[in-house]
């Protein structure tokens, strides 16, 4: 413990200089600015900004990385909250309550709780990374396909709290997502599934196309549909300064829980930082005293998932640094970047180059602080986006959505899909079908199916693999409890 502290102190000593703080600030600014753009996720953001760091010495470069990385992870939530267009998959859940808050003039509060939550969870997770990384990483190796399958099932239970007003319509949305997830190459066999002979469909439907289409384009079309039907109520911003005392009181627990959920799940290479946000949202709603507010601007629904998202970002670094295993696309980009500076992630890293590792970890702390320094004052400024006249706002949203979708793969098909999905999203709003289950289905469906089949294939076709492995059984039991628990509890109290 004391050795770790000493090493960390030396890392800070190397990292904490005035120019380095400047680089951290530049990194956070760039990361946030590019991460904000729809369709440009953290992996691409980091890849695009890497050349900027090539000319720096390793220490400054790591400082800037720390900033870029956390900035990119955070940036996506801004558009999510303000214009209902998540910048990346990890901020989809944020859009539900975050955007409702923005519509009620509480955009600044939503952005603030996201920023502080990101900071708190990011820092806690970095602390956990500092002290528990090796132990956690070897525990994560116990996770095989069977465990990951159970984990996706646990994440699926989040659907229960996302179904909206009617179970039937919620399930319809979920099955739409699952059906879209069928499209594309079967990862295990290489067979083309439901791709109708269109090569661009071989890799399936990009989650970002579905998300931007359903949320941004769908919302625009829906507003047009309602245009002239209900009187326009101008949005009044309640404040530009952030959160009220009440909102602080409701936020701090979700931040801590978000960190506790996000970090360990981030360590596991499964679905990046999306699954933690789903699990966090579900947890917050289950634990809340006023679950009816969820979906209508509950601040816990922003605080928890945003914290989980950033904690997962730190968790991803655990297998990367201690085992050399890149568990997400962003981590793979980071791996290349680290090698650039002679830092070879792997089991020997902490012994071979302690100077670089500890500088990097110190940089993460600094990047996190800078994230707060940059984004707290900006929250009030961003919140004013809601004051842009609606015609211009919606025009801008459509242009940004189209450019985001097109530049994902530079494919016209994605653009056509984007608008088709947008039309469906509008229809879903008209008929009161919830949107998020569809996204959840598209993300989790393929993951779940693949892990299930891998587990069965490894076991030689033996299905008991799901009930004989302790971690699998535990996860499945938790999932069952989450689904049936509230109902059982009600029955029990009624009997008494």
């Amino acid at each position: 413990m004391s050795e770790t502290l000493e090493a960390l102190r030396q890392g800070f000593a190397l990292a904490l200089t005035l120019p380095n703080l400047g680089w951290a600030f530049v990194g956070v600014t760039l990361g946030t600015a590019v991460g904000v753009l729809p369709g440009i996720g953290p992996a691409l953001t980091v890849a695009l900004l890497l050349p900027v760091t090539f000319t720096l010495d390793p220490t400054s470069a790591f400082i800037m990385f720390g900033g870029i990385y956390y900035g990119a992870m955070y940036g996506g939530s801004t558009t999510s909250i303000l214009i209902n267009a998540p910048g990346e998959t990890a901020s989809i859940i944020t859009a539900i309550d975050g955007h409702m808050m923005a519509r009620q003039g509480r955009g600044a509060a939503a952005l603030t709780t996201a920023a502080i939550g990101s900071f708190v969870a990011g820092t806690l997770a970095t602390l956990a990374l500092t002290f528990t990384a090796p132990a956690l990483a070897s525990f994560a190796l116990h996770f095989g396909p069977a465990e990951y399958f159970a984990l996706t099932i646990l994440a699926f239970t989040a659907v229960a709290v996302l179904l909206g007003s009617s179970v039937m319509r919620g399930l319809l949305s979920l099955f739409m997502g699952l059906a879209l997830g069928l499209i594309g190459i079967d990862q295990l066999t290489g067979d083309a599934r439901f791709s109708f002979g269109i090569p661009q469909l071989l890799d399936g439907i990009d989650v970002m196309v579905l998300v931007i289409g359903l949320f941004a384009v769908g919302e625009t079309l829906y507003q047009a549909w309602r245009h002239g039907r209900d009187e326009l109520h101008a949005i009044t911003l309640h404040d530009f300064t952030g959160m009220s005392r009440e909102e602080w009181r409701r936020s701090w627990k979700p931040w801590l829980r978000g960190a506790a959920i996000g970090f360990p799940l981030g360590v596991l290479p499964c679905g990046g930082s999306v699954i933690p946000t789903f699990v966090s949202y579900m947890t917050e709603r289950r634990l809340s005293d006023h679950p009816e507010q969820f979906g209508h601007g509950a601040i816990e629904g922003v605080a928890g998932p945003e914290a989980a998202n950033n904690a997962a970002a730190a968790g991803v670094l655990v297998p990367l640094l201690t085992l050399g295993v890149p568990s997400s696309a962003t981590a793979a980009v980071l791996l290349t970047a680290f090698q650039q500076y002679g830092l070879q992630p792997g089991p020997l890293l902490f012994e071979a180059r302690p100077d670089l590792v500890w500088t990097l970890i110190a940089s993460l702390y600094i990047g996190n602080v800078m994230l707060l320094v940059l984004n707290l004052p900006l929250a009030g400024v961003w919140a004013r986006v809601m004051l842009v006249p609606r015609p211009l706002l919606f025009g801008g949203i459509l242009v940004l959505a189209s450019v985001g979708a097109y530049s994902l793969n530079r494919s016209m098909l994605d653009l056509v899909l984007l608008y088709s999905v947008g039309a469906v999203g509008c229809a879903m709003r008209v008929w009161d079908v919830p949107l998020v289950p569809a996204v959840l289905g598209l993300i989790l469906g393929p993951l779940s199916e693949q892990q299930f089949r891998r587990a069965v294939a490894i076991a030689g076709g033996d299905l008991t693999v799901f009930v004989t492995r302790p971690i699998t059984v535990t996860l499945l039991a938790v999932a069952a409890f989450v689904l049936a628990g509230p109902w059982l509890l009600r029955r029990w109290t009624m009997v008494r």
Partner: protein
Amino acid sequence: MRRAAVSLLLGVLVAGWAAPAPAAAQPVFPHLRLIAPAAPGGGWDQTARVIQQVLLSSKLARTVSVENIPGAAGTIGLARFVSAEQGNGDTLMASGLIMLGAIATYRSALTLGDVTPIARITGEYEILVVPTASPFQTLDDFLVAFKADPESISWGGGSAGGTDQILAGLVADAVGIDPGRVNYIAFSGGGESMSAILGGQVSVGINGLAEFAPQIESGIVRVLAISSGERLPGLEAPTLREQGVDVELENWRSLVAPPGVRAADRARLEALVGAMVRSPEWKEVLARYRWNDRYLAGPAFVRFVDDEEARVQAILHQLGTTRGEAVTLTNAGPYPLFVLAGLALTAAAAALSAWRRSRRAVATAGGPGWRAVGLIAAGIAIDVLLVERAGFVIASSVLFWLTARAFDAGHPLRDAFFAVGVSFGAYGLFARLLELPLPQGVLAGWL
């Protein structure tokens, strides 16, 4: 958004200021575009970005941009490269053995024969690896178990039809077991398969040597065999061949130019790649990423690709990945059928309840906004039709303006002004600052 643009500009200015001044004397390649047919973080993305950096730091090129066209293990990028880059003499694409596998597996209509070969540049050996706790001490132990009950042995590695599976097939074939009986577990990402191997989730793992070097060094895994011809210096790993399995395989990577480039351009690109592989910066990169120097250009490279293509096709055919069956309703497994049935049922139920409600409900006051939706639909249709013909800026301006018209009765001129401004801004941000190309269309000369 403006704030984002300003801060980004600031960052780029800072970066430009920090960059060293370009060399004066050397003849430099003015602008090179590198296509990575993979997503950021993928193998070819890494190759392309490393080349970008070497060309810039060795001052062989003034500017180098990397563009990602991900999809289907590179075959989407290949198709796009052939159709959209025809004759472009300043463009290279990363390719290699994995693309040959993907071409066969996904029955791509285009092959590496449809592009202009430039050179093979790197190679990486493959290893058969187990965690230290595995019961298999040697390749022999493993092969005995495999031959006794082939299906009980799971081989973990990268995506279906990739180098890892090719090696599994070659090994099985060489020891006299039908490759069709290999229980190969394809993982989607490098990280996923690595953790499955390290955690002992599969009987044996196949992976590139370079990615596993740190784990080998630390002794948490044991290399059963390496796919090189000779033992490598500094690595205690026996080759497949010396253990009686007559297989050699190297995951090579190459650079290709678009079809139809002029002879002068081709020579220029070949000279650029030739100069790059001779540079000290490149040697340093090879050592750092543990890549083998496999520079091979000209007719010898073309012959090499032909030979590899034949070998890969043959083994993948035996492995059964080239069946490339198009799965449709008739041959889908239980899971797709479950999902589609669920979709049909819930859709029917939801439609029924909506119909019941609509009969009961009183018509809401005021009709839906058909005019507004119509205007936006027109904008979208024009955008889709025009974006690749007239260019992004024009198509987006029309889309913006019509959308604004849908919500606004008062300010057509103001809206037009903003439409053009926002479209130009978005173009500048994505295409210029971030180098994510957008169609230029008829404005190509001005942008």
